[in-house]
């Protein structure tokens, strides 16, 4: 809270966060986007639209005098007051493309460029910045993590991409098969949504959020090793149309919390792997294939303990 207030007073946009279009347009002085630029489903956008509409009404009734409040224009109207060269496309605001000026009046719903971007962004995972090293494991910043070692990354239009984290990838090791749910299948946070196989054993993977599967990564069917080589990007599992996103995100680890969670899991894994002797190790990135090295331990048992599935 204190940090948020400080950021607000200095109008700094923290890394990984993006300005709300209302802030970008200068209608409000500070507001970060918390709905992935999916304005039609955004509670804040609805509230602001209503506020502006009301303000306009009251001004019509009392046309004289300075406006008591500044909420007299919507963000689209404010942007349209700028010279044409200043009307940034929403994908430029989010940094997805270098320079693109809106050719219409921010009617994203009917914009063909918008449609193309939506499709492109769905097909290809967004690039991931160099992951942070935490206790010998990689964590991608800006991702939300479930305690079953899956991640969720909100993207455009309110959709969410999901996958397995680096910890799970190293723990599972080389997989022979990854099984995906059908498109249209309903997933529930904390319930099994996918399954992975190795040497004839199966482990279930929990879904990090509630929602409907809208796309699966078909490349994984033939190349399960993508999950090992690129857990946060090319090895993504599916795209979900979330049904309880705000509530779900509150139950996931983010930022510092994700770091602490990973360190704790590392300690837990280490003591499970070395339960014959109560030892503590100082040092060490984990090996690439953890279960490969723990041949004497049962893969299924070890994996279930960390993927937290039955």
């Amino acid at each position, binding site marked *: 809270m204190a940090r948020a207030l400080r950021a607000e007073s200095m109008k700094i946009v923290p890394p990984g966060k993006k300005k709300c279009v209302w802030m970008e347009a200068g209608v409000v002085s500070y507001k970060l986007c918390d709905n992935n630029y999916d304005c039609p489903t955004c509670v804040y956008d609805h509230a602001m639209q209503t506020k502006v509409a009301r303000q306009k009404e009251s001004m019509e009734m009392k046309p004289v005098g300075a406006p008591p409040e500044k909420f007299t224009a919507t963000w689209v109207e404010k942007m349209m007051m700028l010279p044409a060269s200043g009307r940034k496309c929403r994908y430029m605001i989010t940094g997805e493309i270098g320079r693109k000026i809106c050719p219409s009046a921010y009617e994203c719903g009917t914009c063909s460029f918008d449609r193309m971007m939506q499709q492109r962004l769905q097909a290809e995972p967004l690039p991931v910045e160099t992951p942070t*090293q935490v*206790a*010998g494991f990689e964590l991608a910043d800006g991702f939300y993590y479930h305690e079953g070692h899956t991640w969720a990354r909100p993207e455009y239009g309110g959709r969410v991409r999901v996958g397995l984290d680096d910890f799970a990838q190293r723990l599972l090791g080389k997989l022979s098969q990854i099984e995906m749910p059908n498109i249209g299948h309903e997933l529930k946070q904390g319930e099994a949504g996918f399954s992975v196989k190795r040497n004839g054993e199966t482990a279930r993977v929990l879904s990090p959020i509630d929602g409907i599967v809208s796309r699966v990564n078909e490349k994984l069917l033939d190349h399960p090793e993508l999950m090992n080589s690129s857990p946060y990007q090319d090895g993504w599992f599916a795209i979900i149309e979330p049904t309880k996103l705000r509530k779900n995100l509150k139950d996931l680890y983010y930022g510092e919390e994700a770091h*602490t969670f990973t*360190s704790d899991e590392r*300690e837990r*894994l*280490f003591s499970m*792997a*070395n339960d014959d*002797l*109560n*030892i*503590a*190790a*100082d*040092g*060490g*990135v*984990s*090996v690439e294939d*953890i279960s490969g*090295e*723990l041949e004497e331990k049962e893969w299924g048992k070890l994996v279930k303990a960390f993927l937290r599935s039955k």
Partner: protein
Amino acid sequence: MKSKGGSSTLSKSITICSLGPLDDMITEHVAGHISNRCGLQYKISSRMDSPKYAFDEKRGQYNSKLILKRLTELSHNSLKFLAITQVDLFVPILKYVFGLAQVGGQCSIISTYRLRAQFYGHEPNQDLLMDRMGKTALHELGHSLGLTHCRDRRCVMYSSTNIADTDFKRSDFCPTCFELFRWQLENCGIRIKPRMPQF
């Protein structure tokens, strides 16, 4: 066998021992550091053989868990036993370790291998090596006394994944870990000053 610190019995001191060849300066520095930080008495015991039995062909490294197991089988007439070696150590599921200890046990082992500046392609730096050795030794001693990893990145009980973590942390316990450390020693009948070294 050298000993320092006067009247206290051996069973209340820390024994430091090298496994295989090691510069005496290192052993003495580690001993001095431990004694300086927590007022514990120490003795430096005569060198033991290089841990050839723990060599892993596949890894080209030494399995620190096997060494620790071997050390615990020997009887040591001291409160804690710290072994120092030059060989590269690993433990199952980790690519390498700087040190390994039994939590609340008697023995621990540390290696100079990845603490030397040369390992990272830098010029030899004796002061840096001594600083890293001191931190690693104190960390393992903490484990031996039952302390687990601390979340404070500056605390010597923070778990170092890489050398940058070791260089970042201080050579002292945070106030919480220090209190725990002191309490554990008291349980062993050893009183040290309640001073909080400049943390």
